[in-house]
């Protein structure tokens, strides 16, 4: 890699981190130990900053679901064995929880439908959807109950933002941004 190329891309990357006012950034393979480490770091930081308990718990919930989602997806399919990215930031009275991972194009519409559905519901609607979905759900092969997006929407209190960027044949890069209002 030539320095010029690195320089330009690093500056863009740096600006991205600035936009988020990122405090935690990780790229790689996610496992339960990584999840525990980030939860611990975030919790300690928020306790030090005297963040309200309810906000701290919401951040903990959103981070858990988002990070465990990545763990599960890295166990199979397009993301298996492939690095994913996680970023935690705090800016403009919001915590931002951002993740990115590879996804098979055939999965995209399923994910879009789920997220669009939760984004279109109010508090009561989300509660109903959660209750109905939980009754019908089974624990999947990779240990999920299919309730993650609903829970993230409920706890964060804000619409989930997402994007799918084509990467190569039949594979895209899925990014998800959840924000939690601080006060």
């Amino acid at each position: 890699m030539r320095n010029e190329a690195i320089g330009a891309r690093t500056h863009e990357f740096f600006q991205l981190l600035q936009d988020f006012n990122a405090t935690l950034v990780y790229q790689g393979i996610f496992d339960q130990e990584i999840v525990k480490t980030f939860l611990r770091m975030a919790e300690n930081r928020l306790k030090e900053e005297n963040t309200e308990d309810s906000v701290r718990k919401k951040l903990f919930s959103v981070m858990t679901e988002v990070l465990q989602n990545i763990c599960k997806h890295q166990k199979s399919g397009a993301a298996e064995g492939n690095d994913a990215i996680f970023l935690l930031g705090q800016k403009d009275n919001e915590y931002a929880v951002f993740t990115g991972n590879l996804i098979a194009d055939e999965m995209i519409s399923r994910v879009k439908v789920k997220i669009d559905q939760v984004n279109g519901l109010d508090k009561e609607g989300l509660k109903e959807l959660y209750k109905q979905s939980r009754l019908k759900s089974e624990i999947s092969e990779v240990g999920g109950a299919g309730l993650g997006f609903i829970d993230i929407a409920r706890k964060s209190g804000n619409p989930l933002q997402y994007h799918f960027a084509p990467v190569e044949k039949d594979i895209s890069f899925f990014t998800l941004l959840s924000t939690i209002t601080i006060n």
Partner: protein
Amino acid sequence: METLILQGTEDTPGVKLDYTSGEFVFSGRSLPEDVNSFYQPVFEWLDRFGTKPLTNSSFDFRLEYFNTASSKVLLDIFMKLEEISRKQNCVLKIKWFFLEHDEDMLEAGEEYKELIEVPFELIAY
């Protein structure tokens, strides 16, 4: 009936299922990597309990946090207790504890209470 005791960890709840003392408590945080393998011994214990249940038992849940997969398993546990109560015609109670200002935990308890037919008490602490 043997006792099942699991120490709580950063990501798994404390579990105490003690037939002799009549204490049945779940506490702490539940976000295990694999909910099914973590809770399997609990379901096995419940099946044995179901053959000779202690009537008037109270199952106490003092959870600080649980992930969505655990939320599903908790529902399964409550339904199992309901089934035991019905089949063996005995009284089993569930006590759901929540920190006073924890609205999410209260709401979670209310949602379970709506579904479960054994006495389900919501207790602030």
